[in-house]
C-alpha cells in the first residue's frame, strides 16, 4: 500500500523544497537596499498603536472556534455514516436523524442565545 503514498511523499518533498528554496534563493540573489521607511514596522500605513502582546483577543473568537469544533466533530461522524448507511437502511437513517436532531436543538439554543452575534 505504500506505493500509493509515493505521490504524497513526492508532493511533500517538492513543496518543502520550493518553500525553502525560494527563501534561500531570494536571500542569495536579491538586491538589498535598506532605507528607514522600508525598515519600519509597516512600509505603509500607521505605526502600530500597541505591542501585540499586550492586546488580548475578545473571547468571541474563542466561542466561534469552540462552536466550529463541535459541529466539525458532527461532520466527522457523518463521513463513516455516509459510507455504510445503505447497509443499515431505515435504522441507520433514524440513528443519524436523532443525532443531528439533538445537535440541531443545540444549534437553535445557541442561535437563540445570541451565540452567533458579534455585538
Amino acid at each position, binding site marked *: 500500500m505504500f506505493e500509493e503514498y509515493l505521490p504524497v511523499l513526492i508532493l511533500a518533498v517538492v513543496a518543502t523544497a520550493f518553500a525553502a528554496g525560494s527563501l534561500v534563493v531570494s536571500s542569495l540573489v536579491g538586491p538589498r537596499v535598506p532605507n528607514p521607511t522600508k525598515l519600519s514596522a509597516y512600509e505603509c500605513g500607521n505605526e502600530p498603536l500597541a505591542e501585540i502582546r499586550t492586546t488580548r483577543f475578545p473571547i468571541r473568537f474563542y466561542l466561534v472556534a469552540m462552536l466550529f469544533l463541535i459541529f466539525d466533530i458532527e461532520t466527522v461522524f457523518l463521513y463513516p455514516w455516509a459510507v455504510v448507511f445503505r*447497509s443499515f437502511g431505515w435504522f*441507520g437513517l433514524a440513528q443519524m436523524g436523532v443525532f443531528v436532531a*439533538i445537535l440541531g*436543538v*443545540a444549534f*437553535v*439554543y445557541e442561535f*437563540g*442565545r445570541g451565540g452567533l452575534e458579534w455585538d
Partner: protein
Amino acid sequence: MFLAQSALGVPDIAWSSFAPELVPTTAALVLLLLGVAGRRRMAVAAPVGLAAVALGVWLITIELNLPGAVAVVLGVALPALVVAFPRTPSLVQAWGAGLALAGALVLTLWQYTAVLAPVGEGPMLVQNALQGSIANDGIALFTRLTVYVTALLVIPMGYGYLRQRRIYRSEFEPLLLLATVGMAALGTANDLITIFIALEVFTLSLYILAGWARRDRRSEEAGLKYFVTSAIASAVLLYGMALVYVATGTVDLPAIGLTIGLVTTPRSVAAIGLALITVGVAFKVSLAPFHLWTPDVYQGAPTNITAFMAAATKAAGFAVILRLYLVAFPTLEALWVPVLSVLAAITMLYGAYLAIVQRDLKRILAYSSITHAGYATIGVVANSADGLSATLWYLLTYAIGTAAAFGALIALERRRQGEVTFADLRGLGREAPDLAAVLALSMLSLAGIPATAGFVGKLMVFRAGIDAGLTWLVVIGVVSSVVAAFFYLRIAGVMFLEEPTGERGRPQVSTGLSVTVSVSAVLVIYLGIQPQLFLDLASNAAALVR
C-alpha cells in the same frame, strides 16, 4: 477481535432497557429550547406535548400502560405549565424538570417490576441490551434510583437559592437533567466506550455547574479546578482503558473478564491498564490521595450544585467502580483488592481527621463525603454479592442524608448571605427548631447512629468487609466512624446546647426547600426504621450481567 464481538447489521433495540433515560433527555432538550423561546414558548410546548400524548396513547394501545401514562401526563403537563406560569418561565423550567425526573423514577420502578422482576425468591433477572452496550442489572437499578431521587430533591431545593443569589439561568435545569442522564447511563454502561462517554457527559455538565456563579471567585475557582483535575483523571482513565484493550482485544466488560483469564493475554499490560483505571476512578469518587480537589470545589460551587455533586456523583462513580472491578477484573483480584483497601483506609482516616479541623460547614461536608467514599469502598473490596448490595444501599442512604444536610445549609446560607460556620449554628435549635432537627437528623444519619438510614448502610458495609476477611479494614472504618461522629455530633450539639449570638432573624426556608428537606428527613428515618423493602431490593440487586 474487534469484529468477532458482534454480528453486523441492525442491532435489536430493547427500548425498555433505556426508557428511564429517554424522559430526562427529551425534557432537557425541550427545556433548553423553552429557555430561549421567549414569547414563543407555546409554539415549542404545544407540538412537543401533542407528540408526547400521541406517543403515550400508542404505547397504551400496545399494552405498555405505565410508560404510556407517563408520556401522556408529561405531554399534557408541558403546555399546561406554560399556560399556568405565563409570567414566571423559571417555574416552568423547574416544574418541567421535576416532573421529568419523577417520570424517569416511575419508569425505573416499572422496569424493575415489569421487565427485571425477580422470579420467586431468586435474584432479579438481568438483561443485556443493545449488543452488550447496556446492562440492566442491580447496579443500573440502584444508580438510577439514587441519581433520579437526588436530582428530584435538588431542583426544588435550589430554585429559590439560585434566584436569590441572582445566578439563575434557564440552562440550569437542562444541564442538571443531562448530568443525571450521563450518570444513569454510566450505571448501565457495559463496555469501556459507553463508560467513557457517559462519564464525560456528566462531568462536563458538572464543570459548568460548579462554575455557575461567575462573579463569585470561589465558584470560578471551583469550576476551573474541577475541570483541570477531572480532565487529567479522564485522560489517565482513558489511557488505562486503551491498555486493557491492547491486552484483551475487546472493550466489552464481560468479555474482558473472560479474556484476562486466558494464558494468551499479556497480564502485565492489563495490570498497568488496571492501575491507571484505578487512579482515574479514584479521582472521580475522591479517594485519598486523589481527593485534593474535593474540598475547594465543594466549597466554591453553589450549594445546591454541591449537594448534587456530593450525592449523585458518588453513586455514578461507584457504579462504574463496581462494574469494572467485579465484572471486568475479577481475575486480577490479587492486584486490586489490596490497593483499593489501602486507598479506602487512607481515605477514611484522612477524611475524618481533616473534617475535624474545618470551620466552614461546606468544607466539613466535603471531607465527610471523602470519608464516606472510603466506607463505600469497603463493600467493593469485599468482592462479594453482599459487598455489592451493601455498597449500593450505602450510596443511596448517603445520598439522601447528604441532600438533607445541604438543604439545611442552603437555608442558613440564604440568611447569612455567605459561608456558614459554627457561629451560625449557635442556638439554631431555639430559633428554627424544625430546620435544626433536620440538620441534626442528617448528621446522625451520616454519623451512622442507629434508627437512621446511615446506620443500616454502615452495618451492611462493615459486615460484608468482615465476611470477606478484611477485619483490619473494618477496624479502621470503625475508628474513622468514631472520629467522624465527633464532628457530626458537634454540629448537632452547637445547635441545641449553645446560646444564639446576636440578632439574625429566621433562616429563609422557601416552600420548595422545606418540602425537599422534609422529604429527605422522612426518608432518612423511614430507611432507618423500615429498611426491609429496600434491603430486599438491594440483595436482589446483587445479580450482575457478567
